[in-house]
């Protein structure tokens, strides 16, 4: 998921930076006082999640948790993911500083998508709907990122379909695991703090 330094061309990198900057500024605007600790906790979760390696499948893949983060945070997910990725780039050498913009957008945009998906599906409370939409959000987070990574790589000469196929296949186990994690998290949060899920229902 993390695109390394020196892989992408300048136009792609700049586009990534612009899109990320827009997302982050919107996220900062929407982040109110009460939300900050929540954002920080989920940033930490994102920061360490990529250290958890999923050993199933043909190549190596790790957890991203962007579906869960987006579902809970909404637009502030952009800031959370930017901070998480910066620290990963600096401390673990994942990805790179120049590709930070592209990487943030690739992971944060599907997070936003899953935020809206979850709100649309849960207008009326239904336990099954809650579980399945949680699962769906986990899957959408990874699937969306995989497709965006493939799209970013098109400019480097990798054909979109082959790259997308490869990345999606590699991340299939991660998708399922994240789906399960997100569904479980949503169910338990619904029990202990339902306001985390219902807040900001207006789209």
């Amino acid at each position, binding site marked *: 998921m993390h695109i390394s330094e020196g892989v992408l061309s300048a136009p792609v990198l700049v586009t990534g930076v612009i899109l990320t900057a827009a997302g982050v500024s919107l996220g900062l605007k929407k982040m109110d006082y009460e939300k900050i600790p929540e954002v920080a906790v989920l940033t930490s979760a994102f920061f360490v999640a990529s250290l958890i390696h999923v050993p199933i499948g043909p190549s*190596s893949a790790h957890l991203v948790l962007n579906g869960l983060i987006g579902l809970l945070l909404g637009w502030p997910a952009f800031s959370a993911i930017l901070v998480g990725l910066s620290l990963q780039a600096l401390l673990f050498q994942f990805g790179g500083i120049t590709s930070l913009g592209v990487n943030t957008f690739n992971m944060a945009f599907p997070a936003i998508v899953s935020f809206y998906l979850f709100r649309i599906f849960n207008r009326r409370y239904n336990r099954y709907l809650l579980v399945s939409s949680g699962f769906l959000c986990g899957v959408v987070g990874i699937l969306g990122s995989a497709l965006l990574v493939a799209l970013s790589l098109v400019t480097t000469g990798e054909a979109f379909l082959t790259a997308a196929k490869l990345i999606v296949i590699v991340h299939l186990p991660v998708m399922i695991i994240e789906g399960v994690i997100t569904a479980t998290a949503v169910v338990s949060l619904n029990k202990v703090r339902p306001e985390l899920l219902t807040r900001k229902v207006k789209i």
Partner: protein
Amino acid sequence: MDAMKSILIGLVLLILLSSNGLAHKVNLFAYAENGMVYTESYFSGGKKVIGSTIEVFDAKNNKLLLTGKTDKNGEFSFKIPEATGLRIVLTASMGHKNEYLLSEDEVRDAIGIAKLPEKSPPEKMETEKRQAPPEKATQIYDDRLESLMEQVVEKKTAPIMKKLLKIEEQMQKPSLQDIIGGLGYIIGLMGIGIYFKYKKKS
């Protein structure tokens, strides 16, 4: 604050898990020996990087010297093309890329060229030899002995080289300090955020 608590417990679990789980990054290591350069590449989960492109550049003028593909063990070896520093670049799929720099000294050592040919000591040795010419038989014997010694030394140092590579690999992994440090940064940022938003409120 029950939710917070459970999230925190989850975080701690994540950290504990992550000490044996591994990161996502592509690694490349190379060493030169006996006129050849051996490279090893793998994702940091330990999976070998198979069938990925390796390009070798001259470290000084960035000239592409040769290209190749990693085999099913993630390895690729090639004969040293030039006695110069080599920059080995691995491009794996999904936007992963890494490089390894082999210094000129290392390369020269591996092909057995003296480090700096302009330097006089080797010549001096020759003149000394000329002054006191040794018997031909002993010279041949010396040469043989030398190559034999080289072989033996190489055999003995091979496991050490492997071990050094392992240590280098270990150093590439995220350490516990990195993880905890990163979490600290996040908490610090949270403090800054709360500080500014709080001021706005009052």
